[in-house]
């Protein structure tokens, strides 16, 4: 595959003292509080935290969809300007458009970028076997299973070849076997393209298996509770989950998350 051999320029991302409060009507909800966050160029960083703590909001700030109240957000060393699109964003919902075939959903970002339709389709076609969606190019999204939909959405993200990918729980709807396959696949893609990946998940093992660095967020308002470097050698395969170091990290993360979840329940 030609596209896979060209390494995209990777871009780091850096957040300093970022806070965000949502106001609707009289109610104000502080979601992010003084976030310090770094992903080095080419790094795979996971973010885990209690449900509703503000992980998706963090992504929206980086993608330029929301504005922080305080602090700075820099991608590749410079503040994000309006009109910049250094980020390929995969939202939590797959948001496949029901009136477009799967392949036309995948080519949409390319067409928006000004690439001709036939050229875009040609490029997308090469990705379908890799994502296990060969034969479904012309199907409507409603005919796909949940897992297939997520793979299509991931394909729509990868095809953009942006230096930074933000993946919001991309494998949430997958069964464990497909999930394992997709994790291996993502590592493979990451290896080939070399972009920076920031990845939200609720799955501790998934985070350890995939990441260089893991951020654990506190209950809302989200702060960084801890930052862990995953010092497991690469390339990793799925056997790594039996390594003693893996179990150690897992216990540490589980402990931290349990405490945050308890905190969260106490505030509700």
């Amino acid at each position, binding site marked *: 595959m030609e596209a896979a051999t060209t390494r995209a320029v990777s871009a780091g991302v850096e957040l300093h003292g970022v806070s965000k409060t949502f106001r609707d009507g009289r109610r104000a909800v502080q979601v992010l509080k003084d976030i310090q966050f770094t992903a080095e160029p080419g790094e795979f960083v996971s973010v885990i935290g209690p449900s509703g703590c503000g992980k998706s909001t963090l992504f929206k700030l980086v*993608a330029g969809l929301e504005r922080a109240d305080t602090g700075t957000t820099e991608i590749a060393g410079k503040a994000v300007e309006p009109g910049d699109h250094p980020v390929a964003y995969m939202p939590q919902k797959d948001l496949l*458009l*029901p009136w477009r075939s799967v392949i036309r959903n995948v080519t*949409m970002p390319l067409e*928006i970028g000004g690439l001709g339709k036939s050229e875009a389709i040609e490029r997308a076609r090469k990705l379908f076997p890799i994502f296990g969606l060969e*034969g*479904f190019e012309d199907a409507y999204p*409603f*005919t796909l299973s949940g897992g297939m939909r997520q793979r299509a959405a991931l394909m729509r993200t990868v095809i953009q070849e942006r230096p930074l990918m933000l993946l919001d729980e991309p494998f949430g709807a997958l069964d464990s076997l497909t999930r394992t396959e997709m994790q291996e696949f993502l590592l493979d893609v990451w290896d080939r393209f070399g972009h920076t990946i920031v990845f939200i998940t609720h799955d501790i093992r998934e985070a350890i298996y995939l990441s260089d660095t893991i951020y654990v967020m506190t209950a809302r308002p989200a702060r960084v509770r801890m930052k862990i470097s995953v010092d497991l050698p690469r390339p990793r395969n799925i056997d790594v989950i039996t390594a003693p170091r893996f179990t150690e990290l897992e216990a540490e993360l589980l402990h931290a998350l349990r405490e945050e979840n308890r905190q969260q329940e106490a505030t509700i």
Partner: protein
Amino acid sequence: MSVISNIRARSASGVATADGAAAEVEWVPSWSERRREAMVYLPGLLLPIAILVVWQLYVSAANVSPTVLPTPIRIVTQLYEQREIAWINTAQTLEEMAVGFVLSVIVALLIAFVMDNLRWVRNALYPTLIASQTIPVIAIAPLMIIWFGFGLLPKVLLIVLVTFFPIVVALLDGFAATEREAMDLLRTMGSSRLQTFRLVRFPGALPNFFTGLRISATYAVLAAIFAEYVGAYHGLGIWMSQSKSSFRTDLVFGAIGICALISIALFALIAIASRFVMPWHYAARRKG
């Protein structure tokens, strides 16, 4: 007949049952399937037939004068005898409706597009549009004749006035129902406002658009008849008025029957168009 034999594999793409093994499957209805489908339309046909039968029997039995209430059979035979005049008038009404309705759809699409994209236009225009809908057709139709004469123009204007509003409202509702997340996603892809409108807001509003179109279709027939009734050279409306004045009640009913057929045909046309424009919508609905 087995279910399997109803499914004909076509090409290696499209709907499939299992992950990986893809085969487009086409549903070929069996005879029992077709019969069940026909049964859906049967009550809709039976009711008017029953009404006509009762009507025929009552009028013959009670010996009602044809100028008061003609029998259905008399209406049809008289209509057939007057078929040339009937056709001239029907053609005139059809022309007005075709021009008026197409113009109305174009106007509605333009207004809805501008209102969706420019907030100040939306705010400025909405009250006036609503007010325009409270103008009674009874009052405005004769004025139209005074201003624009007996020709095509006043009819077309009246049809547009009466029919564009439901389409505009349906479109605006459809645009507004677009998922915010979908628009956000497109923004991260570098989509301009216009691109987002074309790719997400407009296609998403199509089901609403066709609902608005169906509502407007019934108004279109009424508006055309009304506009003609108050002044025209030809058309079903003026023909009704003339027939009534010459005590040809049978022809009045004949014209009414033609209007009903036009309405049904217009509905069918819109249904066909919507299936053609939004195959995905109906495919997803069939799946349930």
